């Protein structure tokens, strides 16, 4: 069966520090991968998606970047965090476009 791992679960980082969140998927190949952000009490906002190794599409211009160095690995990064980067970050995968997505457990990021 397929599983998705996302870490860390919680992170407190000072303003201006770098960020690296990692997500890996097991049990499938060539999945579509997604990074979402959820502000408190709000719906999800798609940040990046990837349909293959090295392919990254950005939905929202911002202080963050994403990379997919391996087929089942998706990384969310920032060189310098802003206070506004605080939020709940979720990684997800799907078999293909328009199918259900399966989510990781999320990372709660607080920038102080």
């Amino acid at each position, binding site marked *: 069966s397929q599983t998705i791992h996302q870490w860390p679960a919680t992170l407190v980082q000072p303003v201006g520090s770098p960020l690296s969140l990692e997500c890996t998927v097991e049990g499938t190949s060539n999945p579509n991968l997604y990074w979402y952000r959820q502000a408190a009490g709000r*719906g*999800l906002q798609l940040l990046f*998606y990837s349909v293959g190794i090295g392919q990254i599409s950005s939905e929202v211009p911002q202080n963050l970047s994403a990379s997919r160095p391996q087929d089942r690995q998706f990384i969310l990064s920032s060189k310098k965090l802003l206070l506004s980067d605080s939020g709940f970050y979720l990684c997800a995968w799907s078999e293909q476009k328009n199918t259900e997505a399966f*989510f990781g*457990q999320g990372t709660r990021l607080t920038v102080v």
Partner: protein
Amino acid sequence: AQKVTQAQTEISVVEKEDVTLDCVYETRDTTYYLFWYKQPPSGELVFLIRRNSFDEQNEISGRYSWNFQKSTSSFNFTITASQVVDSAVYFCALEVDSNYQLIWGAGTKLIIKP
């Protein structure tokens, strides 16, 4: 442009009551997909159902049922005989065939009191 509206911000009912969560969507695309997800307090989103625009059959899964009506652009979710474990935030989402982006509603927080 696409949009999903979940007008109910929070619903509170007593256990064993039936409850319906509303979802209204907007799109000009003829091929689209509708989803419901559950987000319990732990934060992880759990997939509940996917419906494509050509399948208006209602679906029942245990205590859960979904009513898809294209005429009113609605995809409502009913929980029958609610239980405390149903307490969560429920999200409705829309994806059009030409896009990778799920458009999410703001969510409805459901509180089931014992």
